[in-house]
Structure formats: C-alpha cells, structure tokens
C-alpha cells in the first residue's frame, strides 16, 4: 500500500517561513522620531561631576516606566562620551526624605530652600551630582487593528491573518543644574512606531522597538545637551 504524499511538506513550510522571516528582518518595522531641545542655560560638566535620572512623582500622576528610566540611565553612562550616572536609588536614599515622590521639589524654585536644609548640599556634593534629569512621559498604544486566527490539530498547526498596532513614546526630560540652582532646559522625544504581524501558517512579527529607540534617542540628545556648551555667536 502506498501512502499519499502531503501536498505541502513540512520542509517546504519551514523554508517558506525562513524566507518570510528573512524578508521581514530586512524590511523591519518603521519608527518615526522627533526630538527637540529647549536650552535655558549654559551646561557643562567638571571632573568628578555626574547626573542622576529621576522619574517625576507619581503623586503628580506621572506613569513613566521604570524600565525606561533604567534604560536612559544606562544609555547615558555608556560609550566613550558616557556621563557619570549616580544610581537613582543610591541618591534618593542618601538624601532621604527630600527626593521622595511626595517631597521632591516640583520646580527649580524649590531648590534654594532644599539646599538650605541641613546636610543636603554637602550630600549632593559628596555624591558628585551636578544635574538632576527628571523624566516624564509614557509609551502608549494609540492604534491597532487586524485579526489573526491560529489552529492546531493532530497533523500540525498554523496561523492566518494580519495584525498591526502603533505605539507612541512621548517623553520629556527636564535638566536641573544643582550648582546654579536653575533650570538648564528640556529635551523632548516623540517616537511613533507601527508593528505588523502577518501570518501565513507561520506568524512573522515585524516589531517596531519604539520605546527602546526613544530611550537611545533621548539619552544621546541628553549627553549632547549636557556636555555641549552653546558656541557664542
């Protein structure tokens, strides 16, 4: 007795899946970026000075992801032009309770009073923190659609359909100069990326890494913002 050969063999499906994966990798999902810098004062770092990355208080409704804050901190400290980044928790603990979500100054007007508190200025100097970078913003899903259905049986399984979604990563970084007790300016990043998942038996995810691109873009701009002093005209 002869068995019928399946119309489509698994090796063929695997080959087709790999081919689609290769195409998807070459195409990738697109992310559009917009970064703006608004400088309010002269910046620069002396030997031994560094920055600390903080999230704006959740008492004020801020929802910035811890993952994003950690990412920006790591990215600012990386590379040859990396800045010295003081770990956020170390700074907050050393200055307890003056940088807790409830007590941290809401704007630079509160800095002189904060510095007058016993031990605060000395501790900030000891930690070598020149700038506090306050992050605000989130990554949100702003649109999405399509449909995909998957099924599995004794002979195998597969998916068919098409799904997509758009993420918008909007963040603002306010830079405070603790030496001059003033606002040095802000850097805003707005990244939008659309991800697609087409599926013909094998789903091929084309993921737009919106948040991680916003993290890298914002960190690069913050490094330039802090190190680069504007040239006199």
């Amino acid at each position, binding site marked *: 007795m002869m068995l019928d050969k399946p119309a489509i063999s698994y090796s063929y499906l695997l080959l087709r899946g790999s081919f689609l994966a290769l195409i998807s990798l070459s195409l990738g999902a697109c992310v559009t970026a917009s970064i703006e810098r608004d400088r309010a004062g002269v910046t620069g770092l002396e030997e031994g000075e560094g920055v600390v990355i903080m999230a704006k208080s*959740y*008492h004020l409704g801020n*929802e910035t*992801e*811890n*993952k994003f804050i950690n990412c920006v901190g790591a990215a600012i400290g990386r590379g040859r032009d990396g800045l010295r980044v003081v770990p956020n928790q170390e700074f907050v*603990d*050393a*200055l*307890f*309770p*003056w940088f*807790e*979500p*409830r*007590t941290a100054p809401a704007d630079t007007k509160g800095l002189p009073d904060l510095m007058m*508190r*016993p*031990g*605060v200025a000395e*501790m900030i100097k000891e930690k070598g923190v020149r700038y506090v970078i306050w992050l605000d913003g989130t990554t949100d899903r702003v649109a999405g659609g399509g449909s995909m259905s998957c099924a599995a049986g004794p002979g195998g399984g597969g998916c068919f359909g098409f799904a997509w979604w758009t993420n918008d990563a909007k963040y603002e970084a306010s830079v405070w100069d603790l030496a001059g007790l003033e606002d040095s300016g802000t850097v805003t990043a707005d990244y939008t990326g659309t991800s697609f998942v087409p599926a013909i038996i094998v789903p091929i995810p084309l993921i737009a890494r919106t948040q991680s691109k916003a993290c890298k873009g914002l960190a690069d701009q913050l490094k330039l913002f802090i190190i680069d002093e504007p040239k006199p005209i």
Partner: protein
Amino acid sequence: MSGWQETFFVALLIAAVSACSTQVSVRDPRIPDPLITAMPLSVGVRYPQSFDHFVHEEQVIGKEKWQIDLGASNKILFDKLFNAMFTDVTLIAESEDAATLGLDAIIEPSIDAFEFSVPEQSQTDSFAVWIRYRIKIFDRNGTQIANWPISAYGKSQTSTFGGDEALRRAAVLAMRDAAALIIMQMDKSTGISKLINNDNAMPTTAAPAVQQTAVEEQGDDAR
C-alpha cells in the same frame, strides 16, 4: 475512596487553594537614615501590639486572595524615624506609667487602615498601597495634645518587578511616604516642639482641645 485517592484529592485541593492565594511579606522596609537635625526633645514611644506583627488579608472580588505580612516593619519604621527626629527616645511598654519617666512627650502611633489595589482593579500595570497611620501625642502629664491622621501612598509597576515583588515594593514606598510626611509635617500638625522643656506643665482640670489636623486629603489626592 482508597487511601491514595484520598491523598491525591487532598493534594489537589491544597494546590487549587494555594494557586488562588498570594502571600507577600515585608520583614524590613529598609528606611534610610533621614538627613535631618533631631529636635532636642525627650520622647517616649508606645507601640500597639499590632506593630509586632501586622498581617492584612484581602480577597479581591472574583480574583485571588492576597495576604500581606508586614511583620514588625511598622515598628522598625517608627524606631528609625523617631530616633532621627528626637534627641532622646525611650520605648514604653503598654503597662508602663509614662508620667514617672520625666519625658517631654509621649507618642503613640497606630494603623487605622491598610488598603491596596492590584492591576486588575485599577486597569493599570501598577500595584498601589495606602496606609492610614494615626499619631497621638501626650504631654508629660498624659494629656492628649494631638491626634494626627496620616495617609501614605505607594505605587509600583508590575513590568519591573513581578506581581508579589511589586506589591511588596508598593508597601515599602507607602511606608517611606509616611516617613517623609511625618518628618515634613509632624511639628506643624501637632506642635510637639512646644513641649520642649515645658517644666511648668501641670495636670489641668479641663483637658485642652485636641489638635486634630485634617491631612487625610494629602494622601487621598494621590488616588
């Protein structure tokens, strides 16, 4: 039902029950040393029994049961706090008569309420914890001079820490929030510093009006 069937059934039941219950414990909130100057005040602190072992249990409607065991965390928190805020702190047992100790003030902290929300309830990816403490202050004669409610709030995202860890972190943040609020506002809200060297304080026939400060909204605004 045979012996092994019974064992299997009981094991299955235990597994099913434990799968619907999550336990979180906070042994030490690790409150940092506050960067403050101590008030030159000799205070006695009397803790309620619940501060030795505080456990909160709650069944989220239609969801799992949560048990938060704060152990002696509240005691650790207030010990750290008051030892930083005052130059001389004495622990007073519940049965001890504080009037004989020659203290400037006696402080009695307690917990009024403990609440939390899980992501399914708040439709966010965060756990939130609210703790309502109450601080009563008595002068050296045992007359209550303040009855201060404090609402503290902590929030932690699940994406960074796992579910249990996020709730534990939210509880610790709420305790830190309480500590920050007490440091910032205790004197303003209770007038405790007025008891310094109050040698003329004598027992009075008419109790003075208790200073009740409505600060509950300070925590409520964070909800």
